[in-house]
């Protein structure tokens, strides 16, 4: 079972790397930020699967930290600017 979960983690990681293409290509800032947000979510999923595979609670804590902080880049991007 744990090796199966490890494979699943790898599969999620692969979709994460494919998503990189959008971060790299853009073309709009919104594209890049949205893709970066997807990277965050995918990374969280990969960490959860990986943590379950190796039976480590620390991976879940790492995913938790990412889940709390990942929206910040998007927020910094979408909020109104002073004077806007």
């Amino acid at each position: 079972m744990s090796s199966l979960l490890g494979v699943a983690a790898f599969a999620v990681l692969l979709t994460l790397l494919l998503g990189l293409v959008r971060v790299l290509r853009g073309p709009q800032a919104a594209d890049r930020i949205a893709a970066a947000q997807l990277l965050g979510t995918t990374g969280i999923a990969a960490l959860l699967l990986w943590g379950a595979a190796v039976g480590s609670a620390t991976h879940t804590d790492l995913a938790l930290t990412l889940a709390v902080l990942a929206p910040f880049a998007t927020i910094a991007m979408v909020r109104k600017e002073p004077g806007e």
Partner: protein
Amino acid sequence: MIVDLALVGGILALALGVLVARQAFAAVALFIGYGLLLALAWGRLGLMDVALTEAAIGAGLSGVLLLAAARRLSAAPAQEDSPPGRVTRALIGAGCAILTCAVGAAVLLLPDAPPGLAAEVAANQRATALGNPVASVLMAFRGLDTLLESAVLVLAVICTVALAPDQGWAGPPGAPQPQADGPLALLARLLPPLGIVVAAHIFWIGVDAPGGKFQAAAILAAMWLLPWMAGIAPAPPIGTRALRITVAAGPALFIAVGLLGAMLTGAFLAWPSGFEKPLILIVEVALTLSIAAALALLVMGPRT
């Protein structure tokens, strides 16, 4: 192994993307992705404490800081130096290639039996009453470094305050934030309580497992920044005594406890035996609050 190579490829692609990006915005977005992948890479290396820190800093605070800077600069770009000529660039490129090869060779040629301190840490960890070996190093074996690091953060806050214009420098830090409405305002009210619980959790597990004061402080700082960015909780003025005391309290307490150790046992930063754990926890709590305040002030930046 394939996982590692895939991750390395992704990190390299993003790093190259940052370097060749035409707009600052794109570079920052790529950099945020880079930080995220780097956090995963730390996990693969088995350095979970570092992974947590990278997630907190790279994915969270750095992103906010740099995106805000990119937005401000797109309105008023800073002056640029003249670009180096073609020959200079080729020379610099060759130099950097040599550096890469030299460092790469050095990494590969390190002694086969790695000399390290893992065994020493394991042998002495019991004396620190902490279960997390990294916390033992940070709070006991290399406590001086941690103390100085917290002092460096205070100094960095002083630096950013010093960079404000003379007019109104003691007012609230950063640019005034317009009030957000709708979903963002809702998020800014809902997330902080949850985030504070997460921060407390990360702090507490840090005693015996990866995690700890700095990661918790970064999350706390983010929870302060969110309502500030949404314009629903203005930052207190820099002139406020309470704010300044908050920033100074942690490092000052750390030094005071260090001096206490010097008086009681004859060595600075020695934790009096029997009281290691409670004293370390008290100092860590104070440090967490001070570091959180310092990090938030650093991201807000000087008053503009």
